[in-house]
């Protein structure tokens, strides 16, 4: 029996590795060699990336494919409905590539970050949780069923709590608990929303549910629909960093290990946007249910909160946390722009505009994932280089890159990319968002708030550069030779970010 009849190939590969991992742990303990899990994880992430490329080539040649096993009289399997398109496979490809880079980075990094000599068990959790997150992400990405999206979501965020608190410190544990509490409440809202969708349409399959929603007379006055929409916005808003729900982000990013921050900042955000797209934008056409302004206002507040908080932080990973909040604000604002753009059009007329608008959103989200991930990895490497007291406080890591021209160049280009300046992917994506703003007719004051926020972010991005590159180094103990796997990982992500920045059409045609 072909297993890919049940799951897309990348999900299948993830599940296989999750089953094998504990066995590897046993082998490792027998031979007292602890690098096997890490090495095979790197190989496996390459395998997953390769499987996505394979699927992408296949889909490009044969068109979108649905995976929906038909087991007679077994309703439960109807939930297992996936859809593979060029768009979601391109997103999967970027995320799995980032995942591979993070696995490569983690190879030698973990021993130091966990501060433990006996870190074998930690490594099992670490890789297990990482692969669980990736599996959950793929499920959300490929799912064509509301309940499956919820399941995938939980598969992604629950290991996320563990990853945030993987470092054996009290603050790390506290950050993980904060995230878990807020996110669990969000999950309740999501579950209610899924139940309401079932109540309204009688199905959980997204295509079917959309058809039924459009066919119901007077749907726009149905209170359950409005409740479902509000619950979806609130539920996924926790991870999307919607204003008011963003409080966990700086704590979690500040305390998580750098590779964890590099992964969850971008990937979780993309997942929440996918969920918004599938459960909200696709299912409840904005032409009927006007919720665009919620994203406009929410996005503007989120980006302002992120930027205003980032100005004062002394801890680099917290700055990145707030930077991540502001970038999420741009994304939410972008969704608002897409939705505003179709105001006044019928549901059918609005489809091309929505698709075009979301191309830009995906582009921006990918850019954010790459650049923010890169910055986390660089900060991780800096912390690895100076082992004096594991402090992330800026006075302790001052001038850390002054004598490292290669890494400092990458850091400068990454920071200015996040601020939307050339030549990396950050410029192309910010400009795309600005062009999107030009396609809409929202009041200029909103656009001004967005642009001023974007300009002011230069204050803290330039401060990161100033402190790390252009300041006399703090006297500290150097660890000696830095593992080349870290450099390779950073270089690979940087090259991808640069190439897409110089030629964004390379990925845009697939999105």
């Amino acid at each position, binding site marked *: 029996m072909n297993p890919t009849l049940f799951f897309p190939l990348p999900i299948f590969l993830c599940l296989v590795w999750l089953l094998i991992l504990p066995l590897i742990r046993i082998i490792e303990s027998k031979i007292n060699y602890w690098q096997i899990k890490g090495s095979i994880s790197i190989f496996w992430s390459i395998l997953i990336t390769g499987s996505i490329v394979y699927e992408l080539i296949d889909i490009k040649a044969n068109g979108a494919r649905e995976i929906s096993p038909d087991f007679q009289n077994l309703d439960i399997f109807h939930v297992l409905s996936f859809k593979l398109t060029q768009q979601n496979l391109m997103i999967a490809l970027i995320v799995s590539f980032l995942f591979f880079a993070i696995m490569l980075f983690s190879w030698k990094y973990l021993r130091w970050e966990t501060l433990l000599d006996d870190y074998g068990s930690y490594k099992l959790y670490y890789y297990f949780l990482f692969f669980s997150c990736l599996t959950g992400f793929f499920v959300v990405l490929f799912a064509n069923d509301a309940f499956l999206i919820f399941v995938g979501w939980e598969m992604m965020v629950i290991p996320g709590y563990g990853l945030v608190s993987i470092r054996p410190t009290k603050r790390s544990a506290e950050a993980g608990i904060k995230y878990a509490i807020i996110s669990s409440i969000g999950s309740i809202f999501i579950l209610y929303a899924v139940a309401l969708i079932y109540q309204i349409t009688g199905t959980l399959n997204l295509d079917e549910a959309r058809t039924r929603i459009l066919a119901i007379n007077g749907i726009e006055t149905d209170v359950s629909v409005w409740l479902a929409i509000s619950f979806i916005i609130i539920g996924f808003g926790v991870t999307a960093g919607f204003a008011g729900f963003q409080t966990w982000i700086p704590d979690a990013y500040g305390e998580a290990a750098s590779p964890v921050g590099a992964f969850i900042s971008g990937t979780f955000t993309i997942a929440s946007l996918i969920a918004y797209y599938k459960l909200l934008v696709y299912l409840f056409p904005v032409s009927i249910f006007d919720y665009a302004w919620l994203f406009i206002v929410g996005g503007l507040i989120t980006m302002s909160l992120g930027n205003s*908080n980032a100005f004062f932080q002394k801890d680099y990973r917290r700055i990145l946390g707030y930077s991540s909040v502001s970038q999420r604000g741009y994304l939410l604002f972008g969704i608002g722009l897409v939705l505003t753009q179709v105001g006044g059009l019928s549901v059918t007329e609005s489809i091309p505009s929505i698709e075009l608008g979301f191309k830009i959103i995906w582009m921006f989200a990918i850019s954010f994932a790459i650049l923010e991930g890169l910055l986390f990895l660089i900060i991780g490497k800096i912390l690895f280089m100076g082992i004096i007291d594991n402090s992330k406080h800026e006075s302790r890591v001052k001038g850390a890159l002054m004598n490292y021209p290669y890494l400092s160049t990458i850091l400068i280009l990454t920071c200015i990319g996040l601020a939307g300046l050339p030549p990396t992917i950050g410029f192309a994506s910010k400009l795309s968002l600005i062009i999107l703003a030009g396609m809409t007719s929202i009041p200029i004051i909103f656009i001004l708030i967005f642009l001023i926020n974007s300009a002011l972010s230069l204050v803290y991005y330039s401060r990161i550069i100033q402190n790390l590159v252009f300041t006399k180094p703090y006297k500290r103990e150097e660890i000696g030779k830095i593992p080349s796997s870290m450099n390779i990982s950073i270089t690979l992500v940087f090259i991808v970010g640069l190439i897409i920045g110089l030629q964004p059409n390379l990925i845009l045609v697939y999105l």
Partner: protein
Amino acid sequence: LLLDLLFIVPSVVLILIFLLYTARIQINTNIYWILSLITGLFTVIINITLLINYNQNEVKESILGVWLTLGDYSISLSYYLDAWSITVGLISSILTLVIIYFSKYYLQEGNRVIKYYAMILTFLIGMQMLVYANNLIFTFFGWELVGICSWLLIGFFHYKEGKDGEKANLSGRKALIVTGVADVGFLVAIILIVFSQISNGMTSILEINGIFSSNISNIVAIALIIAAMGKSAQFPLHFWIASPDSIDIDAMQGPTTVSALIHAATMVNAGIYLIARTTAFGVNAEVYFWIFLIGLITAIFAGICALNTNDIKRILAYSTISQLGFMFIALGIASYGSFIALWHLTNHAFFKALLFLAAGILIHLAHTRKINELEGILRSNKILLGATLLAFATLAGIPPSAAFFSKDMIIHKVYEEYGITYFILTLIAVGLTAAYVFKVVRVLTFKSESNATNSLEFIPKSTMIILSVLVILSIFSFQFLKFFAWDNSPSHMLDFSLALVLSLIAIVLGSALGYHTIVVKKFIPIWLDHLVREAFYIDHFFSKVGKLLMNLSYQISKQTQSGSHYWNLAQFSISAIVILVVYLFFSVGGFL
């Protein structure tokens, strides 16, 4: 192909420098200098070839490919060739070459100069892109690239001990943030142009020809003017180039070669170039007037500030701001304004680079920027004296220098279009230029006692060659007029008029005022003297605003991110309730 090479060759050299440097291969820093020099020379040759092959009145567009496709809309990577782009491209490449050559003798900073050359080459790429781009997105790309280089180069001396290093860092960031905030104007313009083009059914968006061949709306023009005010240091966004001596955080903290290239002769002209392109095809009369007024205020303001500053680099910086103000005045003239502005830009670029390099030599040898410590210093070297005097004379607009003619055209046109009041105010700006020029000239040359340390005997001959080249270029910048003036030549060219006589009188009066500053100063009240010394507290004002905003942000930060579980949950509840209530009651309307 030539234009492709203009970007490909410097990029390849840049990558090569990056690889050599980061691989930590120990090679002589002169190799990097030679590589940069060859690249600079190459771009000059390409630009000259473009100039030679250019047919007057011809506008060439060449599309390389599509950079970004968004549904039916596309943004192309293409070039736009006309007399203006070739001229500005050529000027920037010549000056970059000159500065690279000069830098070898001026900057002796070990391996750090490698970064310097890399940034200068990046700047060259950005400047050429800004000038030759046929799409506003790529103009913006180049615009930002030169801005980034400006930031990094201003902060070049970050490694210096003590406050000098800190000042360099802060100055770089200040330039980045001030121009970055002004760039919001550029982005607003892009948004509005996209909206208008899409509404008109255009699919190839933001192409220069499509934008500027028809009248652009007032609001787009205003947005572009704000961006240009930031980049070209117009009042009140001038303070990143020159701040009061008491603050001392400005672009002049960078190496003098950088000040000469970027903050005097090339990058600061980007705003002028952008507005020249925009307004050349016509904007509303009110917009012209606003541009004129900004320029006039800037020219007068910077002229006054330059009179009461004791730092030679800062005087030159204020002088740059003032001359950029003159260019803005020219841009504010509807008939041939852009033409005159670009001609003044050409003249200014060469003599200002010359002045900065001369000042660099003085600072290098005397180890001070304070003008009262440089008394009579020029008397010991005749070549330097001659070159500097010629450049100062050009700056003051003394006939028959090229700047005299361009300034005269500006004054004449102001009289024609804006009447006697604004004409007199423009004359005051001209007089102020002459005043600060003569004040400096008097100190540097005519003071009887020269400091013993101020000996200029050991200046390398090669730097003198550079100064001589710039002298020749300053004299012959007049020739660019021919290139500009094919069929757009203004009717007025130095006809003997009342305006001409009055401008000469203004220069003479200004010179006298500058020469006798010490006497004149006795009649100025202390409070006014202090006000001028602090540059009318503009920088102080923006510092206060910045601090207030930071304080506000701090309060927001404290309130929203206390770290407490309860507060996190409370925020969650408040936001959820707001979404539910507001969405249900306002969006759903009355059906509940």
